[in-house]
């Protein structure tokens, strides 16, 4: 183990706001988001890259923030679940999860939202198979997925051409 570890200065834009922080290189992106920035909407579930509760978007792509170092996000734009609402209004996807009972305990919800938001950004009219594939890296232990898929389908059906 090296005897002296220098902190590294990073600049990260999170939900449109610029942050400059000094971090230890081994700090995970999810810890940075939760502990340094106080954005606790992003959850740590399995902490092994399996469950997807920590999913955020990095420059628009969904990533598991427990399997990335904060230093790797230097100069990048991060979108977390807190960035979905606008002016106190829930994002249509969030509303749809509520309307379709797409959550029960809510632990997986931030990751489900960020993974399905990434899908809809890339493909506004996904079929059921594409939705399932997009959330295949996100584990839910309450709802059995059906209502989550319905919630995403409803937003896709309502999206303007």
């Amino acid at each position: 183990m090296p005897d002296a570890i220098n902190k590294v200065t990073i600049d990260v834009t999170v939900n449109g706001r610029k942050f400059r922080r000094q971090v230890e290189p081994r700090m995970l992106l999810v810890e940075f988001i939760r502990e340094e920035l106080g954005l606790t909407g992003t959850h740590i579930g399995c902490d092994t890259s399996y469950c997807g509760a920590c999913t955020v978007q990095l420059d628009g792509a969904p990533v598991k923030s427990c399997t990335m170092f904060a230093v790797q996000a230097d100069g990048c734009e991060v979108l977390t679940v807190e960035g979905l609402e606008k002016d106190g209004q829930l994002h249509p996807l969030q509303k749809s999860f509520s309307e379709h009972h797409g959550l029960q305990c809510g632990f997986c919800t931030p990751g489900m939202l960020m993974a399905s938001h990434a899908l809809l950004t890339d493909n506004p009219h996904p079929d059921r198979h594409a939705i399932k594939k997009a959330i295949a890296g996100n584990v839910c232990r309450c709802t059995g997925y059906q209502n989550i898929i319905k919630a995403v389908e409803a937003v896709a059906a309502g999206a303007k051409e």
Partner: protein
Amino acid sequence: MYPAPFRYHRPANLKEAILMLSTLGETAKPLAGGQTLIPILKLRMDEPTDLVDIGRLPDLRFAKNEGGWVEIGALSPHGWVARSDIAKAIPIVKDCAGGIADVQVRSRGTIGGSVSAADPNCDWPALLNTLDAEIRCAGPEGDRTIAIGDFITEAYTTALQPGELVTSIRFRTPPPGSGGAYIAYKKAAAAFPVVSVGVQMTVAAGNVCQDVRIALGGSGPKPRRAVQAEAELRGKTLNSQAWQHAADAVAAVAEPTDDVRGSSEFKRQLLRGLLLKAGDTATRRCANATIEGSHVYA
């Protein structure tokens, strides 16, 4: 979970990365997408003193088909490869790249990182064996090209020397009349494949197999060519009897281990089934049929 402390370095170019890794010595590790390395560090199965972040090195994210060779840059993420023109033109590449783990891992994980990690169950090594690929490397002693069969020497072990990095992967552009399929069987998206089968073949008039390569994942410490299975098909009419003989040969050559993913006998049976499925898809793709889908979930 936190990895043990390490020093972090971000070289500006490949030359600088090689110099850094050579200077820092064997306790330094390159970090590309981190989808294999970071979980290992978090479990403290490895505690490097230094990480050299090669993830942003310029010019190593590309996929091209020129002069009879397909070449993919080492830092091309799986998801990016799956959406590339190469994947559209060569469906077996899409089977593999688009099926690896889940969309989040495919955003970050790279083809170069995957072959360098050399996990016996990983998708890219098995696929690249199917395509008889070559691994292009750059190191302190210069550049070299290594056949995939020689590149992966053991489970989690490659021919890479200290300071040496994979820069690209290349294979011959499949000829007209050829087609392939790669199928991995997984318990869940984020889980490693239990076993996988890749088939790349050329079918001549009269449904005669002109040429074929078959490789197996999760069937030994490194990806395994099923040479006898290939011999059962090459030059023969592709009927169900020929495929059954090939499936027998696949089951005979595979040496899967008993583990949490299943017994060795279960895995042998899986391999038989996957060979027949991959063989069927590959044959139909030789006739230009469009068939989507690759990985099979439990």
